[in-house]
């Protein structure tokens, strides 16, 4: 399963800014709330996280040391 940004629906106000900002259409609005679609097109640009005014979207990084 492809990892995607995570959404906290309790925090989300349904403003739709994430869906507007998502270039790859991985976020769409359904009945006033964003829905995240699993897609390889999502390159983890983190724009959705940046535009969310209530910190409901998270694009976390696993931090590892090579080797």
């Amino acid at each position, binding site marked *: 399963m492809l*990892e995607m940004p995570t959404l*906290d629906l*309790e*925090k989300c106000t349904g403003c739709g800014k994430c869906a507007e900002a998502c270039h790859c259409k991985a976020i769409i609005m359904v009945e006033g709330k964003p829905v995240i679609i699993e897609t390889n097109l999502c*390159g*983890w640009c*983190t724009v959705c*996280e*940046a535009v969310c005014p209530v*910190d409901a979207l*998270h*694009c*976390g*990084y*696993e*931090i*590892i*040391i*090579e080797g």
Partner: protein
Amino acid sequence: MTATVEFLQASPYFVGMSAAELESIASLFYQKTIDKGGRITWEGNPGEALYFVISGAVKCFKVSREGKEQILQIVLPGGSFNDVAVFDGGSSPTSTEAMSLVKLYVIAAQDMRKLINDYPRLTPNVMRVLTERIRHLLELVDDLSFRQVISRIARILLEYADGVGPKPKLTQQEMAALAGTAREVVGRSLKTLQEDKIIRMERNRLVIADKAGLSKIANTHS
């Protein structure tokens, strides 16, 4: 559920206590589970309990009037938080929130203070834990006062990548809150580190490709 003797034995608070003693105090602890994003303590509220992380990660943070968050510490398994409020009897100096699904052992502040009275040899352990907190906060002052943002980011990445056990993923927002800067600045710092081939961004994986190079940047004072 009460705490296990094995868990308590590994905690710096209870170094030097016998298994029998730990067995008898284990019943003072109870277990609590918090979902990701759930608040555990609120800054300014009475410090009613001491918390030990069994699994997951907890962030201790303060929020400015403008809503800017500064993370002071991320507590990982084996670590504890809310210590200061428990021992000085004051309010919690920070708020705390679960960064992932978190399991905690909790002991009421009055029970913890009673333990110190009943077992005076715990006092040096408490001093060690609290002085470690002071050291950590002094390092943070040093970071925020004397290091450029990119050095702080480098240090955060190294600290977060080191160590054992699973850790929750770190967002750019959280890196900003740890470094005391804006999210955009974190983005620019990561871009610079990437251009210099110190790190590599592989979608949701941040790979430290040149640990020595990153350490050098982390140790650069402005």
